[in-house]
């Protein structure tokens, strides 16, 4: 899947990947790859500015963490982030149902 196709949905996917608990950039990207069966495959480096922007927006909280001798920046969802994720899900359901209905219409009975 190309970056342009994902654009606009990346934020929601990043928020969703942190729903179960805090994580760091590389692990989040691996979750996106594994969770989408490899369909979501962006250059790993692009995730870091995206996380910083979500942090600035108050949707994520980021902090350096030292575990196993390696410093990593851990991100977790803030209450505002959970709200944004719920809103994103709602919008996506409506949008995807509409697009599916239009792209894959059920065969209609002939009326005339």
């Amino acid at each position: 899947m190309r970056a342009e196709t994902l654009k606009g949905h990346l934020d929601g996917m990043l928020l969703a990947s942190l729903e179960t608990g805090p994580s760091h950039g590389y692990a989040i990207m691996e979750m996106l790859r594994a969770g989408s069966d490899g369909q979501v495959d962006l250059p790993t480096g692009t995730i870091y500015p995206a996380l910083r922007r979500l942090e600035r927006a108050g949707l994520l909280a980021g902090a350096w963490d030292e575990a196993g001798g390696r410093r990593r920046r851990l991100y977790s969802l803030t209450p505002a982030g959970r709200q944004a994720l719920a809103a994103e899900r709602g919008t996506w359901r409506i949008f995807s149902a509409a697009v599916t209905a239009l792209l894959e219409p059920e065969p209609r009975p002939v009326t005339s």
Partner: protein
Amino acid sequence: MTAGRVIDTYVEEVTAALPGPPRVRGDMMAELRSGLLDALDAHRQDGLPDDAAAAAATAEFGEPRVIAATFRPELAVRLARRCALTLVITGPVVGLLWAVAAVASHIGIRRALPWEAAAPAGSTAVVRLLLIALLVTILGAVVTIAVTGRLAARHGRSQVAPAAAALSGYTAVTVDVVIFTLLASQLAGAPGGLAPVPVAAAAAASVTRLVLAWRAALRCRAVLT
């Protein structure tokens, strides 16, 4: 090249393609480096030898110039916010010191600005320029802080912040230069009326602010292109 060296080179290349003081991008680059080390570990665990694992890690992260470009808007916003905050914090200090200097010099600031009384004709226009520059500085800083806040971060990126911050920086420089021009004319006309210590303190603060504002404006302008 060792694996660590390959990763350091990659981070250096991204850093070099980003404007601004190292302090602002340092934290982001440290995070990028830590991610690359995670990638290196992952590729080693997949059984790749060191060189190949390092090459795979940097390839996975993306072309350094492309990655720098994705960091750029975020960096621009942070840089602009820092610049605006610098101006907002230093502005009142400089203004207050000049007000104290004016009062100590027994020059009424209500009826006339300190330098106006003895200043040669034409200084009213200069004072007007001063006030306009001051207004633009404040507006530019306020706009920058507003569009770099939380709400704005949820609505994508904008080039407004660095532009407004750069403008604010340049007009702050203008304010200082105009004040010094007026001070010079006062010194030439009636030097006796000035209180040396408060004027010197205000001048020192003004010079410091001028340098800070100039550097801030240049940095914000550099991030615009």
